[in-house]
């Protein structure tokens, strides 16, 4: 086979539909007789519901039904736990508390659903929501992590002794003995605050229970259609085959859409079954801030033990993690944080206590990075601080401590989010680092340009931050590949797509095996009627897990094709090649048969299909990796700060990405760019601002600042480096979250570098121009320090 598809910059199959407004998103679905839902949400973050008066609301013309928790009777139940606490970590404490479709008695975060109105259209439904009178008894609110653990703190769940949601301890080696041997101990406290995913499309659900066929069809902006199908069937006492969940085109996921059994997701199918009518709910932007999950708040007390020449002997990090009012997602985020605290380095002694805390705030579940960002922020900041204390060059200290390329697979001993040991499969961190330094022209900038610009009074800073990223975790995904009699190929998988280009990247994998043009491979994702088994898109696993399942299925089909073609063309298999939709005999191009014809022959109308074979040219395969693969990369940046406004102008930005075998460079670059834009938000522009009453003070895009074209660097230069993963046949690793992970650490380093004349030390993220100004006021010049 001469033509290659994997690794090519192939234009996306899905684009023409998306570009012409012909792609179906959830809100585009119209069903005759469809009703519309709107939710009454609590303004209070913590309150007892004394009464709910829906009488006026019911009178409004066009209102079909109003439900409260009481109306659900015995059908009312909280959502299921989505991820259990890791069974492989000893002595984990975990109190599982989950959200409910409608609040029964106590509201635990602002925005919780108290009642739902079902009406003829959304306008009427919203009017009726305003007619509903709820009497609350406000209760004291707790939002701060340390305060939440104080003995006199208001309790989010009063059946528990405290707001401790979970506790987990992990260790590697023996930190205390490392500390005893160290020449220097560095101790710092870090504070990381919440950000929201803000996908351009808000959530939406349509539930359509058809009483006559006893079928429930749901359209949902979920990243996990199959678990939604399974859970919804279970909740309603239906069999899986009676429920179909479709995640059509989804306008961005970024994590919160993998949170499952949101209150609205539990309510709508129940209500549809009760009313025997299709019901649609589309979240509006303000609801999204409260009702869709967010992430990142943690408070870390960190200690690093080093030798005087900069070797890291040990790292200790005890941290608090905000889980919000409920914890359906287990300890995934803190496990990711712990897995990334050691970064790309050899750290033989590690100790970490994690305490997850309940607060009266919306639920915390993964947002792009899912806890990895926090880990990388800490380790890279600690190294920057160590450099200053030890008088070592920041590049040198990293080079000294990198895991060397011959040390793989590298065992990090602690448990990761997949509940197995954190093992880095392959990588070459030094080489990636070196390449990044070259791309940003580091030496020349530091030696020549920076001094020159500084002499003109410019505040310019340069930074470089390497990182690792655990990706491609199990449990598994599957795919079915089928060659149709038209010669086109159909591929189905239970996975979903929210813009990652699956319709193209998966097609490329098939094309590579079957020699069919990418445009002739039709991929179906996100429809449980098409494929029954799978988990969902999270943890940068699509390319690895689905990709390899597709690869396996396509390879199986290829074997069938060769076997059959060999018979039909009376030629041994090893003399056949697949190209341009044909099976050809090498060197005798006239002797060929199209895949379509072969498919027809494989499904005869007469004669028999031989025992031990299957009709058609189809195969289903699964891929279940034992452990995830470890991608890595490095970001570098040059920025300039305006001394009066504290606004930042990024002059140059370079990224080297090692995601193993690259399936489509265009798509990988796109993921990196998008990740960087979110990372920049998390570093300097985005912060979900809560007040002490649990109110979000910036719940609109006017106040929650998403990066625009102006805040981005003029051009992100991307370089690739490939260390293939030995864990899967494609050798590929994930890259979906990579762009976002190192950015806050990078930003902090660059700002400190820009203000080199001062003892500015950045121990928090996100910053903002205001906050930077405040920190500068608190810092002193080196001259003042020595006085």
């Amino acid at each position: 086979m001469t033509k290659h598809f994997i690794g090519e910059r192939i234009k996306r199959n899905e684009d023409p539909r998306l570009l012409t407004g012909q792609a179906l998103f959830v809100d585009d679905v119209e069903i005759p007789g469809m009703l519309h839902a709107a939710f009454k949400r609590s303004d209070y973050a913590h309150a007892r519901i004394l009464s709910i008066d829906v009488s006026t609301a019911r009178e409004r013309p066009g209102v079909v039904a109003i439900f409260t928790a009481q109306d659900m009777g015995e059908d009312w139940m909280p959502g299921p736990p989505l991820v259990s606490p890791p069974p492989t970590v000893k002595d984990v404490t975990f109190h599982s508390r989950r959200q409910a479709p409608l609040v029964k008695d106590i509201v635990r975060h602002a925005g919780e659903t108290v009642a739902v109105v079902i009406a003829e259209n959304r306008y009427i439904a919203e009017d009726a929501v305003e007619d509903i009178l709820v009497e609350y008894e406000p209760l004291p609110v707790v939002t701060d992590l340390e305060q939440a653990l104080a003995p006199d703190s208001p309790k989010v769940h009063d059946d528990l002794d405290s707001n401790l949601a979970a506790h987990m301890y992990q260790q590697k080696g023996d930190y205390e003995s490392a500390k005893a041997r160290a020449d220097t101990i560095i101790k710092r406290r870090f504070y990381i605050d919440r950000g929201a995913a803000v996908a351009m499309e808000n959530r939406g659900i349509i539930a359509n229970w058809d009483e006559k066929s006893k079928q429930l069809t749901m359209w949902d902006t979920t990243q996990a259609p199959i678990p939604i199908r399974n859970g919804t069937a279970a909740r309603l006492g239906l069999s899986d085959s009676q429920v179909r969940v479709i995640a059509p085109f989804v306008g961005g996921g970024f994590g919160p859409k993998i949170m499952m059994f949101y209150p609205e997701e539990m309510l709508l199918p129940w209500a549809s079954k009760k009313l025997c009518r299709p019901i649609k709910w589309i979240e509006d932007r303000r609801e999204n801030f409260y009702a869709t999950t967010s992430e990142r708040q943690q408070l870390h007390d960190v200690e690093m033990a080093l030798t005087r020449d900069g070797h890291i002997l040990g790292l200790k990090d005890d941290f608090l993690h905000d889980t919000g009012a409920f914890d359906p997602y287990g300890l995934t985020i803190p496990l990711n944080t712990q897995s990334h605290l050691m970064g790309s380095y050899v750290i033989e002694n590690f100790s970490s206590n994690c305490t997850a805390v309940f607060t009266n705030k919306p639920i915390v579940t993964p947002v792009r990075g899912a806890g990895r960002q926090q880990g990388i922020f800490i380790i890279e900041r600690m190294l920057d601080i160590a450099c200053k204390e030890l008088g070592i060059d920041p590049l040198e200290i990293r080079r000294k401590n990198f895991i060397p390329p011959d040390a793989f697979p590298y065992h990090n001993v602690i448990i990761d989010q997949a509940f197995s040991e954190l093992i880095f499969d392959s990588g070459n961190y030094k080489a990636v680092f070196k390449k990044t330094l070259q791309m940003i022209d580091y030496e020349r900038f530091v030696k020549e340009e920076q001094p020159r610009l500084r002499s003109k009074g410019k505040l310019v800073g340069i930074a470089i931050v390497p990182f690792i990223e655990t990706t491609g975790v199990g449990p598994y995904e599957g795919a079915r590949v089928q060659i149709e009699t038209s010669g086109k190929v159909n591929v189905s998988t239970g996975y979903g797509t929210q813009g990652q280009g699956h319709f193209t990247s998966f097609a490329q994998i098939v094309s590579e095996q079957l020699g069919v043009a990418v445009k002739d491979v039709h991929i179906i994702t996100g429809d449980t009627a098409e494929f029954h088994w799978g988990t969902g898109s999270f943890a940068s696993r699509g390319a690895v897990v689905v990709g390899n399942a597709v690869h396996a299925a396509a390879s199986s089909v290829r074997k069938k094709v060769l076997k059959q073609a060999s018979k039909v063309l009376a030629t041994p298999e090893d003399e056949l090649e697949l190209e341009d939709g044909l099976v050809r005999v090498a060197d005798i191009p006239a002797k060929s048969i199209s895949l379509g014809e072969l498919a027809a022959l494989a499904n005869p109308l007469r004669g028999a299909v031989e025992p031990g074979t299957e009709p058609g040219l189809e195969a289903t395969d699964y891929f279940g990796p034992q452990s995830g693969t470890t991608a890595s990369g490095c970001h570098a940046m040059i920025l300039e700060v305006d001394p009066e406004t504290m606004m930042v102008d990024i002059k140059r930005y370079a990224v080297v990405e090692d995601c193993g075998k690259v399936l489509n460079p265009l798509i990988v670059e796109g993921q990196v760019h998008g990740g960087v834009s979110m990372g920049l938000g998390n570093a300097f522009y985005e912060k979900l601002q809560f007040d002490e009453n649990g109110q979000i003070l910036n719940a609109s895009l006017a106040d929650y600042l998403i990066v625009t074209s102006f805040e981005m660097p003029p051009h992100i230069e991307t370089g690739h480096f490939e260390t293939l993963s030995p864990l899967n046949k494609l050798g590929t690793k994930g890259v979906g979250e990579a762009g976002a992970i190192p950015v806050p650490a990078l930003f902090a380093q660059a700002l400190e570098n820009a203000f080199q004349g001062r003892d500015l030390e950045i121990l928090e993220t996100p910053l903002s121009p205001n906050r930077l100004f405040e920190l500068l006021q608190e810092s002193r010049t080196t001259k003042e320090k020595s006085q």
Partner: protein
Amino acid sequence: MKLKGEYTFDASREEVWKIFRDPDVLMMALPGTKSLKQIGENDYEGELQVHIGPIAGSFGGKLTVSNEVPPESLTLTVEGNGKIGFVKGAGDVILINQGDTRTTIQYSGEIQIGGRVASVGQRLFDSVSKSMIDQGLNKLNGILQDRTAVHK
């Protein structure tokens, strides 16, 4: 959100004190007040229409007077909610005698808002509440001046 300020009335302390306990006058003065009724010795109930940035709506709620040391000081506590959110706050007011026809009040308190008005209007809340208080105090002063004029 902290509220703090000072205002000088052209009236005696006793006159100013009386006005703070007169719901009909207060209703005329505070911008947006749709109703204000005394329902107990120290309790009032009312409805206030507000416009903060893109949010417009009304709060229904209670106002309670406490810690009275006539005519020197008192504490006002307010608690209300409506379709646009909720509000609760408390403030201390001190009346300082500046002469027969001058009194300075000093107020200091805290107000908390929640719901839609907090998420979307928070940025403007400071300036809007200041302006509402200023308008209200000016209007009250006008009424006091008229009364003093009448008495003369």
